[in-house]
Each structure stands twice: as structure tokens, then as C-alpha cells.
């Protein structure tokens, strides 16, 4: 009677194991169809269920029917551990070291694949600059710069007038420098020139980005005109 009772309990336990198997067995059919909730549940279950199974196999005291049903959840659990890193879910480390070691190589491979994919794509993107960057725009001269600034709608009338005053002031400083006959270079005027360019860029970069880009690209060309006495005198 006692043996029959033990057998009945073992059979009940085996049937209970078979009933739990079908939801997890969907994980074997395809990696992407696995529900993460199921994976987590399977992982927890493996850790809890495996020691009794191994003990049962080692002792060989358990009846034969109990071995077959317990084997199936074990394979499912291993599959679940392998699948889990592919979903890029940072889960808690597995308590079973064997399972962790088995999962480590398979986990690294998808992770490396997913990490290397964007690094391959990024150089392709950088190889193709936008058309506006690739297309070099001709540098502006002073007259064209004045005309473009006068025609833009990015700044108001007061601002245009104030800007014109400051440009005229800077040109007057260059003129005074060249008329004074100083042998020193015009490097001292570079800072006010840069400041004025920065002010202009700050004013128009939001409303007229193309003009801002053109001015920014013409910065050295305009300085080259201003810093050369011959070119500067030809302006006026």
C-alpha cells in the first residue's frame, strides 16, 4: 500500500510536469516568438526543478515513468536560458553555474552581432555627407555680403541699421590703419572682425541658415580682402 501510494504521488507529480511543459515548448519552435514572461518563469523553474531531477537519476530509486516527464522540462529550461540573452533583457544572473556557462557563449554571439551591426552602418552614413555640405559655395566679398544682409528677412530694420553701423566702423578702423602708414600688421583688428562675424552669425543662423553658412565659409576670404591694403583700397 505504501509503495502504491508513493507510485501514485510520483505519477501525479509527473503528470503535473507534463501539464507545465506545453507553454514552454513554444520556445523551442522559434526564438522570436518566446514570451519574456515565460522565459523568466522557466529560468526560475529550472533552478528549482533540476536538483530533484538529477538526484532522482543518480539515486535511480525513483520509478521509470517519472524520469521521462522530468527530462522534457530540463531541455526546455536550457533553451530558455539560451534564448533569454538574445532578447537583450538584463536579467538576474542564473543561479545554476552550468546553465550560465552554457548560456554565456550563445549570449555573447547575438550581443556581438547586434552591437557590431550599427558600427558597420555608421561609416556608411558618414561616407555620404549632405548635398549642402558637399557643394562648396563661392566665398562672399564685402559688397555681396552687404547686399545679402540687406535683402535677408532674418533680421529687422533696426538690427540691419545697427549692423551696418558696426561694419562701417570696422571698415573705418581698417582705413585709418592703412592711412596711418603703420608697418605693423592688421592682426589687432582680427578680434573685432571675428566678434562682428560672430554677432552676425548669432543673429541670422536661426532664420537664414544658408546665409549664415555662406558667411561662415567666407570668413577667411573676407579677412583676406580686409588684411590686404591693395584689395582693401580697391573696395573704396
Amino acid at each position, binding site marked *: 500500500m505504501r509503495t502504491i501510494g508513493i507510485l501514485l504521488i510520483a505519477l501525479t507529480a509527473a503528470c503535473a510536469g507534463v501539464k507545465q511543459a506545453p507553454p514552454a515548448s513554444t520556445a523551442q519552435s522559434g526564438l522570436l516568438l518566446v514570451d519574456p514572461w515565460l522565459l523568466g518563469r522557466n529560468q526560475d523553474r529550472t533552478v528549482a526543478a533540476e536538483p530533484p531531477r538529477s538526484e532522482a537519476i543518480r539515486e535511480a530509486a525513483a520509478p521509470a515513468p517519472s524520469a521521462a516527464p522530468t527530462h522534457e522540462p530540463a531541455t526546455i529550461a536550457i533553451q530558455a536560458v539560451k534564448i533569454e540573452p538574445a532578447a537583450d533583457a538584463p536579467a538576474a544572473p542564473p543561479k545554476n553555474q552550468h546553465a550560465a556557462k552554457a548560456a554565456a557563449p550563445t549570449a555573447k554571439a547575438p550581443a556581438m552581432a547586434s552591437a557590431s551591426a550599427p558600427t558597420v552602418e555608421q561609416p556608411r552614413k558618414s561616407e555620404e555627407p549632405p548635398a549642402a555640405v558637399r557643394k562648396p559655395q563661392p566665398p562672399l566679398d564685402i559688397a555681396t555680403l552687404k547686399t545679402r544682409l540687406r535683402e535677408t528677412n532674418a533680421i529687422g530694420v*533696426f*538690427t540691419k*541699421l*545697427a549692423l551696418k*553701423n558696426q561694419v562701417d566702423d570696422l571698415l573705418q578702423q581698417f582705413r585709418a590703419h592703412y592711412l596711418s602708414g603703420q608697418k605693423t600688421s592688421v592682426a589687432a583688428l582680427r578680434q573685432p572682425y571675428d566678434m562682428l562675424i560672430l*554677432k552676425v552669425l548669432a*543673429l541670422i543662423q536661426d532664420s537664414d541658415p544658408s546665409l549664415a553658412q555662406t558667411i561662415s565659409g567666407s570668413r577667411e576670404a573676407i579677412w583676406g580682402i580686409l588684411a590686404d591694403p591693395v584689395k582693401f583700397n580697391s573696395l573704396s
Partner: protein
Amino acid sequence: MIAPARTAALIFSLAALFAGPSPAAEDASLLKDLTAVIMLLGLPCGQVVSVQRHADNDHIATCKDGNRYRVFVNAEGRVVAQKQ
């Protein structure tokens, strides 16, 4: 007889046709313009929040930080911002 809905649509379309830029839009552009001028002249302001017009090309601008400037064009044609 014309339906009231059609009359309303006609009135609104005519109003939209003949309406100029709204005063609010003009104010916004003027505020932006005066903010840029004060910034260009290197004066502390932050942002102009209100403007009182005195005459053509002569405004009192009140800044966000509390400063007030009279912005005008002087006889030499220069834009000047005088702190009030």
C-alpha cells in the same frame, strides 16, 4: 435667401482677404528686432518683453531683466540704445 452659414463664411473669407498682419505679429517682430539691436550693442537685456512707441524709429524697450532702453535712430543715422 442666403443661409446664415454661407453668410458667415463669406464674411470670414472677406475679412481674411483684406486683413493685414496682425498687431501681435508686428509686435513680436519688433520685440525680436529690438532684442537683437540691444544684444548687438552689447547691452544687458536678455529679451525685450514690451515696447512703447514714441515716434518713428523711437521706442522704449523693457527687458526681461528689468532694464529699460530708449532705442532710436539719431541724426547721424546710427541706432542708439540709451538706458532709461
